[in-house]
């Protein structure tokens, strides 16, 4: 039964090769558009999120600021001053913190030989590396020994390294930061990053121990600190606990919203993800319209086919075909065209994506990412194909099934 069914189907399709292929091409093009648009939307979203992760993943940034509410005799506007020692003690007082680092930020003159740049220098602790993805590609990040010894060592961003040394050896070289010699112990692994808070992007920064930073420049209070909660879902609660703890220590109203400004990257990530999901859906809808046009093509061709084959339908009904037999015959034919077109469309788009991959275009990849045929793309395209295919197939099939046998035989 199934064998005969497919044999007849193929015979019907190849009986009118030109018409079948024209109809097919509409579906092929529609599928191609849907796949590429969804894959594109998906990859742009992912690339942007990756760039966003360049700044750090699952972290909360806290910026001590000024009070905006009076508290225990102090007027509002009192500066909130946090020392790096206080920051490093927080995990002993507040549970739920995986890692925390104070951060000093300053703009300093960095020089090597006759090359000079005014770049951002960050005084941090070793935990910073994990939180902010400032991973050492060569050498290492600063370590606890550096911290304890207030050593003059630094890890520098990949762009700064290239600016200073070109393609030459970097590790072990001595550079001057405001005329103080520092030994380079590491170069940061290149990363995609779309934002940073105060100062330049990490690719141009020098990272030194905060102990060294405060000794050299006489800073007492951090510009900010960063932590990552053990449980990313509890970032809000942990942030509040830290505020409460510091408010007791420093004397400000724990309910003061602006005494310590906080930036929870997880909030942002959620919005970001939602935005790009909407973007992908939007592109998918646009693609679906193209496919809809293909579907309309299938439906109208099938209507003509049904019209032409009225006599055949009449004969089949006369020898005992039931309505659903006729319905299924035409429905499956439309669906077959849709699926065949879909398959070819998938093939073509896979080829196109492969071709895109062959272009080594760095900055393009950074913004657009690499569109690929991932499960999301495949599943959504197949669903769209099926929905359009079922509707496009059902309409002419129902017309066929409601044929009056006598009227059909008189044709």
């Amino acid at each position: 039964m199934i064998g005969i069914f497919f044999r007849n189907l193929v015979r019907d399709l190849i009986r009118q090769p030109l018409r079948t292929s024209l109809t097919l091409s509409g579906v092929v093009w529609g599928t191609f558009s849907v796949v590429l648009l969804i894959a594109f939307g998906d990859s742009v979203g992912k690339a942007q999120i990756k760039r966003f992760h360049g700044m750090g993943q699952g972290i909360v940034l806290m910026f001590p600021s000024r009070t905006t509410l009076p508290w225990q005799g102090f007027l509002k506007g009192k500066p909130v001053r946090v020392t790096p020692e206080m920051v490093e003690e927080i995990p002993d007082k507040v549970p739920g913190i995986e890692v925390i680092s104070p951060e000093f930020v300053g703009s300093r003159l960095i020089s090597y030989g006759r090359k000079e740049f005014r770049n951002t220098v960050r005084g941090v602790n070793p935990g910073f590396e994990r939180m902010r993805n400032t991973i050492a590609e060569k050498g290492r990040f600063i370590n606890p020994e550096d911290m304890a010894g207030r050593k003059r060592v630094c890890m520098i961003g990949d762009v700064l390294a290239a600016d200073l040394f070109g393609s030459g050896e970097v590790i072990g070289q001595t550079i001057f930061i405001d005329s103080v010699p520092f030994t380079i112990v590491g170069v940061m692994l290149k990363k995609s990053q779309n934002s940073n808070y105060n100062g330049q992007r990490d690719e141009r920064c020098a990272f030194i121990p905060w102990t060294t930073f405060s000794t050299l420049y006489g800073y007492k209070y951090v510009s900010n600190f960063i932590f990552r909660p053990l449980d990313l879902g509890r970032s809000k609660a942990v942030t509040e606990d830290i505020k409460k703890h510091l408010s007791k220590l420093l004397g400000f109203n724990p309910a003061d919203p602006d005494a310590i400004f906080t930036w929870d990257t997880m909030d942002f990530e959620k919005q970001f993800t939602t935005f790009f999901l909407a973007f992908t859906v939007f592109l998918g809808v646009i693609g679906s319209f193209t496919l809809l046009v293909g579907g309309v093509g299938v439906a109208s061709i099938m209507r003509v086919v049904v019209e032409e084959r009225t006599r055949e339908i009449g004969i089949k009904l006369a020898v005992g075909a039931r309505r659903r037999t006729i319905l299924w015959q035409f429905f499956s034919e439309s669906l077959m065209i849709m699926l065949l077109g879909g398959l070819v469309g998938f093939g073509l788009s896979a080829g196109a994506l492969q071709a895109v991959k062959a272009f080594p275009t760095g900055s393009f990849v950074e913004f657009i990412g690499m569109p690929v045929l991932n499960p999301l793309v495949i599943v959504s395209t197949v669903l769209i194909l099926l929905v359009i295919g079922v509707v496009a197939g059902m309409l002419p099939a129902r017309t066929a099934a409601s044929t009056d046998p006598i009227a059909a035989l008189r044709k």
Partner: protein
Amino acid sequence: MIELEGIKKVFRMGSQSLEALKGVSLKIERGEFISIMGPSGSGKSTLMNIIGCLDTPTEGEYVLDSDRVAGLSFDQLAAVRNRKIGFVFQNFNLLPYATAWENVELPLLFDGKNARKRKERVTELLKAIGLYDWREHRPSELSGGQQQRIALARALANDPPILLADEPTGNLDSRSGEEIMDILTELWKEGRTIVMVTHNDRISAHSQRIVRLFDGLVLP
């Protein structure tokens, strides 16, 4: 048994309407061989279509083997056409792109018979009408007589007790016509009920009884 009582059929085409049957009553016993004769346009085909459950009367009662046909659903009527009634047309009505084999197989497919049964039955039928060697040929490659024999084989596929033939020899030369008539007579002798429309007295001579239609009515 076929019982028609006061059958009327009105065709409407836009504002005009045409009464093709004006109250036909007719009883056909099991195992009878009947010819229906009458001038062109007298309603013979219309009557055959109603008997064959291809069409429904506008008025009147049709009882087929004690079933009121008016009470049957479309799919029940399809089952009647599939198993109980074989229909042979003047213009054969074969599927043009299907082979002789596939045309004969069609009613078996619609009946849901399995591949082995279909193969057995189609082979048997094609051999009986002497066209087994022509099984892979399309209708356009066959003579009129051969096509009508294929159509007959198709009508007999599910071994129906009733065979309706609307001018089965109308498009054939006399020799092919005689061949078809020999087969029909043979089928009747096997016990089938046969109702045949014809204009030809030599053809109608094969039957037991002749019913004459004139202007939508049976002549007494």
